């Protein structure tokens, strides 16, 4: 935990961490739920603690809701502005695919307070998204499409003086869904290095999470505006209960998956924080009455959430139904265990032998009442180092660490066609990562570097030709093709939670597991896979809106459950 020099370092008891061989499996990571360590949760706590100052400084929309709006927010005395451009979109052009060229709304997070000229000039770029040109004043770029069915329903009801259908709100959960949220230097925008020294922004994806939260505010204002213009005197505002239940949807595809492979130190830090938090909680001797009550409330909320979580995908619905059964069966036991000694350790143990979904749901549950000992870990989730090569390591030492950390990769039989069936590449059409069946003429240089077991086995074979005393520097001069996997293996030896221990080019690979893992760290819920390669989710559903956000309610954002809010 980061501490100022004037503060004594607080020590926490903890049990042994779960090993990477258990945690870093795709099937498990694909069962993660959001936790209170998730990025949107830590942002909400920050905003509430600081007394969020949000102002709508411009709202130039016509009766249809087309035009622009600007929201100004202050973080640590620094102004940031979400500029929103809303436009008409023909139904046939409304697609969630990343190759879309038009959207219902486009957004920029601007560093500072934009003037009228900025807003006007930026419109031409923001509304074409990737085709625009940006500079360091722009921090985040995003776009969203309406959930037309829900948007029209809510607008219609409010215009008649009625509140919307509660079940419909609960089932869909958002008025707009983003189809991309770009940051960190994309398209010429500001690099993370440009603002990393601002204390509010050091945590990963903080600006992206802020952007989505402000987009949510815009959608709530937009629906009221459109309904009011249509209904006149009959119009009523959307009720607070519904405002809170409307989050922001998101469609996420394969583009997110390679990030987890390409940032091993960062992923290690996310995982290590999560596992350290769990290890701390499992060491707690007893839960006091408040924690017990809180936990029982969370069980109620979880039960409701699971009942309300319905998806079309048969495989995923099967997993959800199994999770419902397991949760209902064990819930009485959970209610007893929370009253006993070492309650959280017992709760975790009670889920062993059940599905990984229940096991990981319990991880999220036991962290929830214990913010006082886990929230500070959120300061440790960034990567300030990156992968490093140690050219002075001996061949013998590298062989030892390969045996220790990559035994799983050595055990894979690469002579089996299914172990090399897929290829990850970058599409010519949109410069986006994709995965496809490997063709015989595929060029290796066009393959993204995700075939870790193949690389490890090739390196191991060549190392056998060297003396164990030889320097890695000498090996790499003769074999530059191993440079990336040597750097990676050495990095993983220091950051063992940075590598998923599965073959990412095997025939049975499910990229959706990678997506869910990353999205859970964002704080996403209601995972709704549309295939094994893309998913819809919601962000901020059930979270306090800006006008009600306070230190008292900012933590009350576990899994959205309409029936208990």
């Amino acid at each position, binding site marked *: 935990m980061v501490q100022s020099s004037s503060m004594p370092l607080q020590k926490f008891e903890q049990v042994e961490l779960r090993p990477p061989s258990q945690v870093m499996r795709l099937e498990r990571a694909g069962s993660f739920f959001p936790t209170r360590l998730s990025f949107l949760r830590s942002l909400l706590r920050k905003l509430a603690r600081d007394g969020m100052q949000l102002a709508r400084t411009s709202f130039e929309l016509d009766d249809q809701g087309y035009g622009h709006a600007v929201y100004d927010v202050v973080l640590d005395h620094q102004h940031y502005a979400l500029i929103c451009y809303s436009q008409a979109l023909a139904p046939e052009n409304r*697609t*969630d*695919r*990343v*190759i879309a060229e038009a959207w219902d709304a486009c957004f920029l997070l601007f560093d500072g307070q934009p003037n009228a000229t900025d807003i006007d*000039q930026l419109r031409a770029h923001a509304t074409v998204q990737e085709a*625009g*040109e*940006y*500079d*360091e004043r722009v921090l985040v770029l995003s776009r969203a499409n309406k959930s037309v069915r829900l948007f029209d329903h809510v607008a219609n009801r409010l215009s008649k003086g009625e509140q919307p259908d509660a079940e419909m709100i609960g089932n869909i959960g958002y008025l707009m869904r983003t189809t991309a949220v770009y940051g*960190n*230097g*994309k398209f*010429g*925008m500001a*690099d*993370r*290095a*440009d603002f990393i020294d601002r204390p509010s922004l050091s945590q990963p994806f903080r600006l992206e999470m802020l952007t989505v939260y402000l987009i949510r505010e815009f959608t709530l204002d937009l629906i009221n505006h459109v309904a009011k213009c249509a209904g006149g005197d009959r119009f009523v505002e959307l009720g607070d209960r519904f405002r809170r239940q409307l989050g922001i949807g998101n*469609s996420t*595809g*394969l*583009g997110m998956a390679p990030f987890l492979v390409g940032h091993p130190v960062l992923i290690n830090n996310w995982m290590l924080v999560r596992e350290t938090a769990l290890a701390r909680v499992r060491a707690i001797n007893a839960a006091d009455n408040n924690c017990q009550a809180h936990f029982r409330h969370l069980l109620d909320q979880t039960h409701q959430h699971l009942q309300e979580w319905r998806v079309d995908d048969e495989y995923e619905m099967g997993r959800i139904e199994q999770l419902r059964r397991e949760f209902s069966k064990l819930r009485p036991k959970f209610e007893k265990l929370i009253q006993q000694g070492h309650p959280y350790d017992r709760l975790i143990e009670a889920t062993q032998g059940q599905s990984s979904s229940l096991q990981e749901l319990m991880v999220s549950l036991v962290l929830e009442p214990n913010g006082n000992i886990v929230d500070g870990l959120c300061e440790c989730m960034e990567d300030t180092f*990156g992968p*490093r090569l140690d*050219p*002075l390591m001996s061949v013998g030492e590298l062989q030892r660490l390969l045996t220790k950390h990559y035994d799983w990769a050595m055990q894979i039989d690469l002579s089996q066609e299914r172990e090399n069936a897929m*290829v990850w*590449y*970058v*599409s*010519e*059409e*949109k410069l986006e990562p*994709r*995965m*496809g*069946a490997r*063709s015989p003429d*595929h060029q290796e*240089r*066009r393959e993204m*570097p995700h075939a870790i077991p193949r690389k490890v086995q090739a390196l191991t074979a060549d190392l056998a030709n060297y003396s164990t005393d030889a320097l*890695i*520097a*000498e090996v*790499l*001069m*003769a074999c*530059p*093709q191993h*440079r*990336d*996997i*040597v*750097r990676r293996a050495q990095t993983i030896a220091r950051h063992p939670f940075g590598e998923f221990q599965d073959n990412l080019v095997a025939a049975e690979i499910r990229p959706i597991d990678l997506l869910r893992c990353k999205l859970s760290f964002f704080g996403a819920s209601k995972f709704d896979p*549309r295939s094994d*390669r*893309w998913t819809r989710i919601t962000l901020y559903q059930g979270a306090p809106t800006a006008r009600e956000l306070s230190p008292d309610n900012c933590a009350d954002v576990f899994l959205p459950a309409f029936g208990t809010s």
Partner: protein
Amino acid sequence: MSTNLHVSANQWRMSILKACIGAHVARGVAEDIADAGLALLALQHDPLPSVLACLNNHQSHTSTVTWPNGSDKVEFGQMHVLHHGPSVIDLAQSGTTISCQIDAPDLLLGLAQARLHSHGVTLHCNFDDDDWRTPTIALQQINAATSSRPFSLRLSQTDEPVAMNMTQLPQPSRENWCELQDFTAEILVPADATSREDAGVGDGQTDND
């Protein structure tokens, strides 16, 4: 928005990396060259002319590097940075003094500077004049004459890594930047090079985007 091209550090790094891979440079070497590019940018030096020159010549190069003989000083012949620059830095970091002629002295200095940022390793160099300089100073002194002279590199000290200032980077010419993108295009794959279903074409729904 200004009409000038604005390239972020992230774009710099990813474009150099992809361009090198597009030119058949081994990925791990390409990663180091990209980091060298960033280190040069932090010194307000545009790495693109050197990178482009190296990439354009890369296909025709054959390695003439001799194997280290275990002495504390290694003499290389003509040395091509995209093949062996990172390995030369590795060996210099081990305490071996390297002497060679290189095709891109500023990129090699960038590699030396990057190792300062990532590992805290300070390397010094000279242009066959026994005047050992830091990469920063050497970069300021590079000219046509020094570029053609033998170049020596040795370990000076090891300390804590030094952070780079990656704000206010020099910007490339649009022409150079577009030429770099031509190399990055070499790694792109048309969607229908794999099955169309995988490429997300068909029912219009997202399946792979």
